[in-house]
């Protein structure tokens, strides 16, 4: 058994977890919902094991670094953080419907890592610029932040779907009646963005400490840096609009979706469309 085998199990696991969340919403059987959650917990445990195993394998190969060094490994970690944050939210608010929208993100990240033809999944040694203790702090904080924004985006989508139907009774709303209350969703969008914003700030700060020791500049307007700043500015605007201007509901949900689009561009778009210091993230 090796980490690659476990990770392919994980990919299918997220698929089935997402599928069962959807089925449980459609046929309203709580047993299926519990099954979906059970699968998710098991998959998350295997996923955690696989990441640790890949770490161990890299030591066995005499390379020895945390599995956070290229696009493949970052996608694996991204999926893990999404699952982790979603599991925490499900446990906290006790609703499984968000799973319908959150688990597909974890599955898509895993599927992209596993099935993209240009993906390099070998464990490779670290280039001199990546040999830094700040690597782990930087990548972990950034991706936990990205995952919080991903969950916020899924909740925003749920909010926008449910909003037009709020005048109807729970029975008339059909499936949407099983979504958490609109006020709960609204609050959740905000809470997850606050977490994401804190972690993104921490990620940018640790990245600039690292850049300062590797290149002598804490900020060099490299496209990835700039896009992370653009993302930060969008969420900063959102938080000001909500806290100072009293914006709520649909407007915040849309801003949260725009914010996550910026996250996706920072993560993928910069690697494929622009060039810069972070180009090793592309392979």
């Amino acid at each position: 058994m090796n980490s690659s085998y476990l990770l392919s199990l994980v990919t299918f696991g997220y698929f089935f977890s997402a599928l069962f969340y959807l089925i449980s919403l459609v046929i309203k059987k709580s047993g299926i919902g519990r099954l979906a959650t059970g699968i998710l917990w098991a998959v998350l445990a295997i996923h955690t094991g696989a990441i640790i195993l890949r770490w161990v394998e890299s030591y066995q190969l005499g390379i020895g670094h945390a599995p956070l060094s290229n696009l493949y490994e970052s996608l694996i970690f991204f999926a893990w953080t999404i699952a982790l944050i979603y599991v925490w939210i499900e446990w906290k608010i006790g609703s499984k419907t968000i799973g319908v929208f959150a688990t597909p993100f974890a599955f898509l990240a895993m599927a992209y890592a596993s099935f993209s033809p240009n993906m390099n999944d070998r464990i490779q040694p670290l280039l001199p610029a990546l040999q830094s203790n700040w690597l782990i702090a930087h990548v972990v904080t950034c991706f936990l932040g990205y995952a919080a924004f991903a969950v916020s985006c899924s909740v925003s989508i749920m909010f926008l779907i449910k909003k037009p139907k709020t005048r109807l009774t729970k029975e008339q709303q059909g499936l949407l009646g099983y979504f958490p209350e609109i006020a709960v969703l609204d609050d959740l969008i905000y809470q997850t963005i606050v977490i994401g914003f804190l972690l993104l700030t921490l990620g940018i700060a640790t990245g600039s400490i690292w850049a300062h020791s590797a290149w002598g500049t804490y900020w060099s307007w490299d496209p990835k840096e700039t896009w992370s700043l653009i993302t930060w500015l969008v969420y900063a605007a959102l938080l000001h609009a909500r806290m100072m201007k009293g914006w709520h509901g649909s407007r915040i949900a849309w801003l949260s979706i725009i914010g996550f689009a910026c996250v996706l561009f920072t993560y993928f778009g910069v690697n494929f469309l622009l060039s810069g210091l972070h180009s090793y993230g592309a392979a």
Partner: protein
Amino acid sequence: MTTTQSSKSIFSEVIDFFASVKLALVLLIVLAITSILGTVLPQEEPLGFYQKAYSPLVVKLIGFFQLYDMYHSWWFQWLLFLLSVNLIVCSLKRFSTTWKVIMAPPRGVSESLFESLSFKKKLSLPENPLDDRAYVSSLLGNRFGKPVSLTSASGKAFYLEKGRFSRLGVYVVHLSVLIIFAGAIVGSFFGFKGFLELREGESRDRIVLKGAQEIKQLDFSVKLDQFALSFYPNGMPKEYRSDLSFWEKGKEKEKAVVMVNDPFTYKGITFYQSSWDQYPLSIKLALKREGRETELLIPMEKKTAVPATPFSLQAVRYVNNLSNLGPALGIILFKDLEKVDQSWILADHPQFHGNRLGDFHLTVKGLKTRYVSGLQVNQDPGIWFIWIGSSLMLIGFVIAFYFSHQQVWIWIRETKDHQGETKTDVLIGATAHKNRGALNLKMEQLTRKV
């Protein structure tokens, strides 16, 4: 009178404009959108690059708006300046109010106070508690600190609070942004960024500053004692390492190793491993002319005579990889003192037809090379502003997002009910300066157990 009044109102309008959240939102969004431009348009390229790629009109726009270096352009700096003014004016304007609230004594109890609070509840006790203070503590525990007695017209009143200073969180965040900006300004005025190329064994006391092509004199000299590079088995680079020594007045003061991610600071100036190169010390050449072959060792850059001929050779340039053809040497052929020919000689391609100078065909038999280490040399006195600003920002976020000023009032009064029986009323009220929902929920839980 009217003129002063209107000028005053214009002044306060200007203040209101700069203090407004609307301006902050517009600036954040405009900064976000304009920042995209510099990630799409290549930055800091020579003018010719833009002239080749874009039409004359676009080149003119790029020139006027300084889009070739947009993050340092006049208008982008203006946007950042406006954001700073916005931050300062808005924070100052709100701060005086916040400070008054923080410093104000708690409001006394009254019916209207409880009306205004977000959480209010009335409990009825069959008899007066023996010890009011102990009763309050039993109700709320240590959650809100020690109860303070308030004077009241009737009964007994207590006030509890926590997180009073969390009202300052937002100012900590705003201040941290200004500190980071200040750090960037200090760095650009009092710091420098430069580059230094050192050959093994070479020592220098001057560096080339970035951009301006200026030379900066250091008050010490730095010597590259040795450069080493190593590779992984698969050929990926593993480590670049420069062994440096620092000299003052002909004396060695300190030795240091500089690697990628592991810089070294001497007298406030930091040296970073940035790049490396190779240069030849000497070249062993085979010369073929009119069927006769001779071997010759020529030191780099030194004109060397070809024995028994009026010719001499001088190797003036070396590149690691010329058009993907591998290492190449730029060699000049002299006859007596006159230059007669020059060409690139490819070291790894002995059969290359261009490997000739005049009547000579040249083959490189051996290269004795040494390393050149490229070092980034910086001084940034603003860096501590950046680290302090970033830390403050994170602390400020935690305060601003996860703490709130929570206030609780408790008023214990004796009243008579309809039958004239004496009973005790306990009025509990609470509010928070944000996230009231969470406080209301908590208060509901605390008072339910009574």
